[in-house]
Every structure is written in structure tokens, then in C-alpha cells.
């Protein structure tokens, strides 16, 4: 088989059903094979869209997402998507073409040292120098991407490696001596943690994306109910615990709920699971949860004691460790008073906004929530649209909220929605977007329309780069430096691609437009003209303690 054939055969053996990508000179042998193979190939309009689509596909399905691009600019266009997947620990395999081996280093046409470029934004990467290594490398790449703390792996394949004809040998086993992720928690640590939990009076579970990537949502629910602890989630953790559950505190941190932030600050025990104490979560570190002991469960040892000092570190897979803890805990703490206090905070500081008869973005999201009965997959862009989506839609299932957490990539939501819809064709998929970020990958309208990927896009159009404008309003004396946008007519724009467009300028038209978008058998853009200077509240100013919130208090 040629290298290209070996690649395709290896991808099939890894269970790849769909790939997102773009052709070019250095991947022609691969594309020639893709012409008559039963892997679905989705031709995007920009390689960044392919990387985000693979990412969205992986988040929605738990499978490894795959994207493919040519050498040089094709490869460099993938990098934002790769970095995005890296920051959020999403398993994707990015395949790039490379100039012929004997030209590498000669500044050949469309040459870029993509393994060099992506070294710090991949979990691992490979430059395949010999066709005989290709099958093994593909096997290793999928294994590395999907195990341990998941992440992106890039495989760079020179044209001559794709062309060379050799015997195909599939390695049944993967053996990487430097890579042995820990799966189960250390029994001694589990015992200690169980003791801490039994003795606590004000425990709180702080759940992150690790719950979702390890599939630990059932165990988390059982665990929280057993020990009677409230659960707050990071942005990445939303959906890992039902937002409708009485023990749910919603999201914590900079734009978290006031009751989640108060609860974590007042707690005597934080049980962090698959979360990494990011600065957007902790606020001012030296003021963070002053009275709490910390149990930190994470598959990545380097996440533990990186930002905060941890009392009981437990390295391993969240699902396994929660199972171990559930077995170990005999005596559950009495949290009745603690839950009463939290209930009073929930009553005193609910999420709120002022209804003035105009279209409020929070209202739009509430209506999307009701119209989809909380069962849609929601993707977001980055900024105010993202924070409102965290606050006003209650996610009850894992893998239904897809958002760029760590990297904060504007332009992520639309191609991610595309990938999610390809992976879950029976689900309603909504991208909640801003008028700024939707334009960062708007070219994927063509991809969605011609591949019948019927995602719905709710543009919260305020004519601003809203989050930056909010910071300028609050911290830069309302000097709106380059945050006012000139926008196209989004309805006409959608229509020009063959999609449907709806403009909504009155509050009473919000719900009917959402219903219409859902029932329309097409890609739909809904252009909601929202209150232009609406802010996201509550808000913790950067560098403040997270119970020092401003705004949004009832």
C-alpha cells in the first residue's frame, strides 16, 4: 500500500467516520484516496473551521475529531484550533501534508515547520519521515489524544511518505514507554479524602471539564447526593451535573453566580474534580477560600498544586476515583445547616436582569432554553454571548454545552456547532454568537449549507465587541476604543449563502423566531437586535477576590 492508503486504512481501523479539511498540493495523494473511500469528508472554507469542527465533533460525541490540511498555510491555519483543543483537553488528531522529505528545511514552496510551530500547543506531534512508521504513528496518535488528559496530536506527513509503496502492518498493541497515565486513585489518598469529607461541615464540589471527558456525570450525581454537598461547575464542567438539580450552584468565578462564589469562599472543604483552579475561577489567589481544605482529583499531576496548594492530591481518572470514594465513604457529613445557608444566598442573590421591554440577551437565551426544553447542544463564541449562555441556559446533560474555555477563541462557536451537528445529527444545535465573533468564521456558512448541516445561529447583535466594551465602560472611562462594529445585513448574508435569515427587533418576536428557526429545514441565522449596552453581571474585576462581585444583585 502507499502511505496515503496506509493512512486511510489506519484511520478506518481507528473508527474514524468523518473528517473535516481542505485540500492542497502536499496532501494530493491522500485526497486521491479519499475520493473513493467511505469516510465522510467535509470540505470547509478555511482550515481553522476544520480544526474547530473536529473539536466540536469530539466534544459532542466523545470520539476523536479529525482534521486534515495541506502544508504551510493550510497547517498554520489549523493552529488556533489546535491551541483551542489543547487548552480545553479535547482529543483531536490533526493531519497535515508536508513538503517532500528531501526539501524539508529548504524553504520550499508552502513549507512550514509545523511540528516546531505546534510543539507547545499539542499533547504530542509527529513528523513522519518513513512510510513504515506511519501506521504505528496513527495508532499512537489516537491513543495519546484520547487517553490520560486528552488533547490534540498532530501528524505531519511529507508527500513522498504518502507516495511510497510498502507492506501494511497494523500494530495491534500500542507501547509507549514514556506515557503511562494513572487511572485509579491511590487507596491511601482515597481513605484520607473520605475522612476529610466525613469530618467536613461545609463541603463544596468544584467540578470541571474532567467530569465530562471521563464520563463521570452519573458518579458525580450519586456522590454529591450521598454526601449532601452543593456542586459548582467551571465553564468546562457545565452539563457535568444537572443545572436543574437542587444541589447545583451553576458556574463559579468571574461571571459565576453570587451564591456559587459565596459558597466556595465560605466552604471548609473543596472537592475539586477535573478542574485546574484557573485564574478566572479563583480570582485573587491569596484570598481564595481561606478556610477550606482542598482535595484535588485530576488525571494530570501537573494540574495539582500548580495554582493553589492542595491538601490531598489524588491523581487519576475522575470516574474511577469517584467510584472508589463512593465505596470508601461510610459516614456522610451533616450538611443541613450549610445547605440552608446556601439556599438563603440563592434567594438573596439570584441571577437577574432588568426587563425594560426591549430585547435582553438573557431573555433570548431563556427562550432558547424553553423552546429546546434544555435538550439542545449549545455552542458559543467568546465574550458576553458566552457568559450569558453559561448563566441563562440550564445544561442537564454532559456534552451539551460546547465553548472555548481556556483559549477563549472568538470564531469557535459556529464551526464547533457544525462539528457537533455532524456528530449528533438528531440534536438541535444552536450557536449563541455575538455580532463580532460570528464574523470570524462566517465562511463556514457555505460548508453548512452545502453539506446540509442545519445548525441554528442566534446572533446577539449589539453592534459592539460587547465584553471588551463592558471592560472599557467599567475600567476605561467609557472610552470605546475600536469596539464599535460596522456589520453586514446578517439576514441577506445568510440568504446569499442559501441559508435562512430572520431579523428580530421586538421582544414579542423572540420566541416565534426561535420556533421558526427550529422548524426550518435549513441553516438559520437569527439576528437579534439586543440592548446595545447590556452588561454581564455579576462580575468580579480581574485580580479581586471572587466574593467581591459587582452588579446583578437583586
Amino acid at each position, binding site marked *: 500500500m502507499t502511505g496515503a492508503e496506509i493512512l486511510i486504512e489506519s484511520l478506518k481501523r481507528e473508527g474514524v467516520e468523518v473528517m473535516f479539511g481542505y485540500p492542497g498540493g502536499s496532501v494530493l495523494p491522500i485526497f486521491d484516496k479519499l475520493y473513493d473511500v467511505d469516510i465522510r469528508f467535509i470540505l470547509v472554507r478555511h482550515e481553522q473551521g476544520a480544526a474547530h469542527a473536529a473539536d466540536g465533533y469530539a466534544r459532542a460525541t466523545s470520539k476523536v475529531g479529525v482534521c486534515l490540511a495541506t502544508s504551510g498555510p493550510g497547517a498554520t491555519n489549523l493552529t488556533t484550533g489546535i491551541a483551542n483543543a489543547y487548552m480545553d483537553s479535547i482529543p483531536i488528531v490533526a493531519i497535515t501534508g508536508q513538503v517532500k522529505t528531501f526539501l524539508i528545511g529548504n524553504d520550499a514552496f508552502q513549507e512550514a515547520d509545523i511540528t516546531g510551530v505546534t510543539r507547545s500547543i499539542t499533547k504530542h506531534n509527529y513528523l513522519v519521515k518513513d512510510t513504515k512508521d506511519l501506521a504505528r504513528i496513527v495508532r499512537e496518535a489516537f491513543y495519546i489524544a484520547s487517553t490520560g488528559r486528552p488533547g490534540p496530536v498532530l501528524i505531519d506527513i511529507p508527500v513522498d511518505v504518502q507516495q511510497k509503496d510498502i507492506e501494511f502492518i497494523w500494530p495491534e498493541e500500542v507501547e509507549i514507554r*514514556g506515557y503511562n497515565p494513572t487511572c485509579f486513585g491511590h487507596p491511601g489518598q482515597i481513605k484520607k479524602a473520605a475522612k476529610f469529607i466525613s469530618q467536613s461541615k461545609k463541603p463544596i464540589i468544584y467540578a470541571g471539564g474532567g467530569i465530562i471527558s471521563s464520563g463521570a456525570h452519573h458518579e458525580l450525581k450519586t456522590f454529591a447526593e450521598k454526601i449532601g454537598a452543593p456542586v459548582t461547575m467551571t465553564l468546562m464542567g457545565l452539563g457535568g451535573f444537572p443545572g436543574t438539580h437542587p444541589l447545583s450552584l451553576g458556574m463559579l468565578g468571574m461571571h459565576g453566580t453570587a451564591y456559587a462564589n459565596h459558597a466556595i469562599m465560605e466552604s471548609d472543604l473543596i472537592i475539586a474534580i477535573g478542574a485546574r483552579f484557573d485564574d478566572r475561577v479563583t480570582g485573587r489567589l491569596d484570598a481564595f477560600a481561606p478556610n477550606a481544605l482542598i482535595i484535588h482529583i485530576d488525571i494530570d499531576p501537573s494540574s495539582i498544586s500548580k495554582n493553589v496548594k492542595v491538601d490531598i492530591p489524588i491523581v487519576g481518572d475522575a470516574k474511577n476515583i469517584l467510584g472508589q470514594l463512593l465505596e470508601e465513604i461510610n459516614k456522610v457529613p451533616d450538611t443541613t445547616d450549610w445547605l440552608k445557608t446556601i439556599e438563603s444566598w440563592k434567594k438573596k442573590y439570584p441571577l437577574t436582569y432588568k426587563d425594560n421591554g426591549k430585547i435582553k440577551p438573557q431573555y433570548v437565551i431563556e427562550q432558547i432554553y424553553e423552546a429546546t426544553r434544555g435538550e439542545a447542544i449549545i455552542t458559543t463564541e467568546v465574550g458576553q454571548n458566552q457568559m450569558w449562555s453559561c448563566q441563562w441556559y440550564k445544561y442537564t446533560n454532559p456534552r451539551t454545552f460546547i465553548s472555548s474555555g481556556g483559549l477563549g477563541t472568538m470564531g469557535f462557536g459556529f464551526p464547533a456547532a457544525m462539528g457537533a451537528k455532524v456528530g449528533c445529527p438528531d440534536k438541535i444545535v444552536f450557536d449563541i454568537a455575538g455580532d463580532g465573533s460570528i464574523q470570524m468564521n462566517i465562511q463556514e456558512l457555505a460548508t453548512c449549507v452545502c453539506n446540509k448541516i442545519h445548525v441554528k445561529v442566534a446572533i446577539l447583535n449589539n453592534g459592539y465587541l460587547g465584553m471588551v466594551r463592558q471592560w472599557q465602560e467599567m475600567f476605561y472611562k467609557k472610552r470605546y476604543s475600536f469596539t464599535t462594529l460596522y456589520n453586514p445585513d446578517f439576514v441577506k448574508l445568510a440568504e446569499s449563502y442559501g441559508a435562512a435569515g430572520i431579523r428580530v427587533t421586538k421582544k414579542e418576536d423572540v420566541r416565534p423566531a426561535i420556533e421558526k428557526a427550529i422548524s426550518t429545514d435549513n441553516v438559520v441565522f437569527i439576528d437579534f437586535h439586543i440592548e446595545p449596552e447590556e452588561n454581564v453581571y455579576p462580575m468580579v474585576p480581574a485580580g479581586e477576590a471572587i466574593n467581591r462581585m459587582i452588579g446583578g444583585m437583586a
Partner: protein
Amino acid sequence: MRHTISVLVENKFGVLARIAGLFSARGYNIASLAVSETLDPTISYMTMVVEAEDERILEQIKKQLNKLIDVITITDFTKKEHVDRELALVKINYSTKDKIRLEGVLKNYMAKLIGHKGDTAIIEAVGEQAQIKQLLQELKPFGIKDLVRTGKIAVES
């Protein structure tokens, strides 16, 4: 504070770049780095001296190194008995009348004169970093023209 650690890595192209890249991306400092082959041709041995303000940073450095797929094992010599050495080549000003004075200095060290040409001599010295440092002090009066050091190599004892 400086710590000596050794790292066994896959002997593949790009591994050194991964390690150097990790240090620069995360803002850690390498004071010295020595790379060599081992008895197993698929494995390279790196000895590095790293600067870490506190235990937490040293722990992070080790954990981050361990995350690299091509890193096989890490040994931290901070709390381990070990032997370490560094090699230095020193060019000094020299004329034959300095011979006795120079020999007097060198005999206290694992150092020797390996040759001289014109008004320059080359000295080879092996030892712990402190010894090399001390020798350099003593060679200063001759006039040091050039200095090359390997960085530390270490092995558990």
C-alpha cells in the same frame, strides 16, 4: 536555588527542542544542559541544572517534563547521593617561565596542561562546579583568554 536533575529521553530528533521549548514556554530557567548517548542507542541521557525559586516550581518542572511523551524517567538529585562533574577548557596567557607556577596551581585540582602554542596554553579541568570555580580564580592572575565549560553531568551514587 539550583537543582540538578537527569532525564532519560527517547533518542529521536526534536526531543531536545521539546525540552528547551517547555522551559521557555513556561518561563523556567536552565543553567546548564548536557546531552549524551547511553548504552541503549534508543535512549539519550540529559543532565540539567535548573533554577527554581521554591519546591513548588521544581515540582512543576518535573511534572511538566514527565508529561512529555518522549521523556521516559526523571531523577531529581536534590535529595539523592550522587556524583557530579563538569569539564572546563581554559585558555590562558602563558610563557615557559610560568611553568612551575602553573604546575603549582594545577596539582591541587584534577587539571592538566594539555598544550601550548605561542603565548597561549590550554588547560583541561574536571571537577565539581565549586572546584572549577576555585581553579578559575587561581588562573585569573595568568590572564584567562577563553573559557568553555560542558555543564554538569551527574549520576546517582
